[in-house]
């Protein structure tokens, strides 16, 4: 599958934004972080900025962005529509909770209920994002039970890194949040490694014999292409990378997205707060975002669409 930059930005930014939103809302509502107005302003500001930038990016690849409002109408059948609806709905409780925090310094009582509602909305939105991909039976690397949990774990892990960095920057000192980030990262990494192992060892279920239905007559191979120039179907669905590059890129994704942020977090736990710890935490968050971009690029580039079987692919 062709990795469009707009979709890479959309999924990585909204993921981190919603992850941060979930943690701010839950820990804020539980009173485990102080309702400091400036922390609320910067935390929710960053979260809303990432979510909104991601959602805007997702409209860049549309042929008709001005018609994007129509995408909220088909929530009965379409995961993409559900994702749009949930994203819009979530703004309301999240915005109200943020206002209570910032202007009233209050995150308890009714505000806390709004916070919990916003956290649930954000988690469901990320779930819908994962299901857009997981629901496609045409791509075995996506139609896979790992896909949606990984989207949710990666959102929580990147969100937790930003959350931890903000808490440290506000001089809250050492807290359990670094360990929380590390636990999320480790869980996401375990799931991602399981996913890669799964798609590598799965038997490619189909070949051109299946696609054409001619397999019972013998081995089917493309004899002549249907047209002289590559068409939309080949450009959009035919893109996938050689295994050699996949291995290298997986290594970079694991290093930047997981191993280095984990190491920085570990170093940071030995410091007693202060500027150094905050800088390390921000560095971990930024590195993880870069790692997420590689991971997401691979998610598309390694995906083989069954239609490629009509165009000379031997398995898909």
């Amino acid at each position, binding site marked *: *599958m062709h990795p469009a930059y707009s979709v890479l930005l959309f999924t990585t930014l909204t993921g981190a934004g919603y992850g941060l939103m979930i943690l701010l809302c839950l820990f804020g509502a539980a009173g485990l972080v102080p309702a400091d107005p400036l922390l609320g302003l910067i935390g929710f500001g960053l979260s809303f900025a990432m979510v909104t930038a991601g959602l805007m990016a997702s409209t860049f*690849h*549309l*042929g*008709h*962005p001005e*018609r*994007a409002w*129509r*995408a*909220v*109408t*088909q929530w*009965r*059948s*379409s*995961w*993409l*529509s559900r994702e*749009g609806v949930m994203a819009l709905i979530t703004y309301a409780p999240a915005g109200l909770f943020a206002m209570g925090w910032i202007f009233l310094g209050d995150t308890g009582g009714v505000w806390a209920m709004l916070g919990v509602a916003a956290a649930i909305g954000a988690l469901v939105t990320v779930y819908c994002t994962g299901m*857009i991909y997981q*629901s*496609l*039976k*045409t*791509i075995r690397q996506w139609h896979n039970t790992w896909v949606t949990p990984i989207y949710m774990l990666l959102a929580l892990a990147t969100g937790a890194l930003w959350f931890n960095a903000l808490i440290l920057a506000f001089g809250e000192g050492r807290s359990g949040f670094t360990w929380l980030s590390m636990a999320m990262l480790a869980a996401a990494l375990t799931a991602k490694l399981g996913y890669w192992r799964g798609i590598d060892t799965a038997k490619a279920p*189909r070949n*051109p014999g*299946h*696609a*054409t*239905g*001619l397999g019972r*007559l*013998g*081995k*089917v*191979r*493309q*004899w*002549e*292409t*249907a*047209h*002289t*120039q*590559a*068409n*939309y*179907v080949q450009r*959009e*669905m035919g893109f996938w990378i050689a295994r050699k590059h996949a291995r290298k890129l997986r290594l970079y994704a694991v290093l930047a997205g997981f191993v280095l942020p984990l190491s920085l977090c570990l170093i940071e736990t030995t410091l007693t707060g202060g500027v150094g710890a905050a800088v390390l935490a921000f560095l971990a968050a930024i590195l993880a975002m870069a790692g997420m971009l590689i991971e997401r690029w691979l998610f598309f580039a390694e995906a083989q*669409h*069954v*239609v490629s079987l*009509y*165009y000379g692919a031997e398995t898909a």
Partner: protein
Amino acid sequence: MTSLPDKPSGKKLGLVIDLDTCVGCHACAVSCKEWNTTGYIAPLTDRNPYGAEADGVWLNRVHSYEVRPGTEGSGGMTVNFPRSCLHCEEPACVTVCPTGASYKRAEDGIVLVNPDTCIGCKLCSWACPYGAREYDEDHGVMKKCTLCVDRIYNENLAPEDRKPACVRACPTGARHFGDLGDPESAVSALVRERGGYDLMPGLGYRPVNKYLPPRERRTGTDSGPEALEPLDPANPVAGDGVFRWLDRVLSR
């Protein structure tokens, strides 16, 4: 509304494509392009049509495949394979559409895209296993086979022309159009007689269009004169003594 029709009429208009008689002439594809570039979903844009990198939207593409049987001695064959929308009964391209632009008609099962409400998100093309949808870069909307909905009900056309353009154009009669929901229809009879099949039935999209497999080829010694039989390695040159002597001399 991208949910599938609650009460489909039972009418399932579609095509039956005969892989035995298709000669791969591309007349169906050209005729499709010609009709549809002026029809309901017009135009079917071409980009740089006369340049080195011509690129355009086609709703029907004709592939060719080589089929090599596993058993030795029997010949292989080439199969021409036209590919277009199969107007599935469970079309995921419809249900994934976030706007309702992609829909399946209850009255005859035709799958269409409304070009006025399509946002060009391309998700439907990801959901289609058969590559039936092609994106129109110029107009920012998805295009697909309409089963010539603007021909088949068109009373301005002569009755014999109220068929999809591809069916009308086929010089060998390899394309058949009809109601596959009616077991008494000519197309349903053809599917029964010739063992018509679905493409990738395991995916569960339940295509309406059916493909008729190539008929069995004659094999073995029936297929050609004895002169074309492989040479005996112990006696590579058959024929008279002079050639056999010459072969022996030259083989030293």
